[in-house]
């Protein structure tokens, strides 16, 4: 069953499971970072994670309230995709996956030739998030 085949009730259930999984993962991450990471890392991760979860809840609320007049990103965040939204999301994630493979190879090579490993590891998620944002906008506008 693809995302586009799901009924609204199934989409809502999938979204709730995603929210629950995200919350559990965030709590686990906070617990680990609070013990092992220096300074305010745990608090920072918790703040960032709660922001993402809150945005997902806002997207869900806007999707329920505005229905099909909500934006593509709102419908995706709210778990109420139609087939074009699914197409945009799938193509975006495909590009991000491709870039992730390349980026990890480049990162490994950079570390081997002397780059600071911690810096490279910290930079990778931001590079991929940037790729995600740019690719999403391009694919959404072209589809």
């Amino acid at each position: 069953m693809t995302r586009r085949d799901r009924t609204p009730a199934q989409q809502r259930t999938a979204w709730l499971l995603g929210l629950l999984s995200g919350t559990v993962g965030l709590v686990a991450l906070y617990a680990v970072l609070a013990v092992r990471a220096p300074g305010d890392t745990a608090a920072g991760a918790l703040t960032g994670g709660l922001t993402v979860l809150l945005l997902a809840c806002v997207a869900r609320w806007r999707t329920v309230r505005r229905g099909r007049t909500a934006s593509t990103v709102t419908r995706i965040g709210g778990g109420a995709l139609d087939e074009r939204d699914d197409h945009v999301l799938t193509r975006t994630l495909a590009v991000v996956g491709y870039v992730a493979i390349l980026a990890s190879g480049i990162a490994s090579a950079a570390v081997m030739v002397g780059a600071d490993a911690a810096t490279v590891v910290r930079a990778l998620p931001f590079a991929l998030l940037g790729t995600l944002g740019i690719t999403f906008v391009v694919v959404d506008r072209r589809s």
Partner: protein
Amino acid sequence: MKNEIRRLREDAGLSQAALAEALNVSRQTVNSLETGRYDPSLPLAFAVARYFRTTIEEIFHDEA
């Protein structure tokens, strides 16, 4: 893919939002279909044809 969706919609006096509601897709999807930026899945193509009481070949034109 070029298509007649905009003409059929306007002839029926429908807004993009109204057609989107009838087809259970977003207004953006209807807009993308009309401008040819997005080609529908087979189920959606059949739904469009069924809604306008015509055939897929009458609505969508293969550019090949």
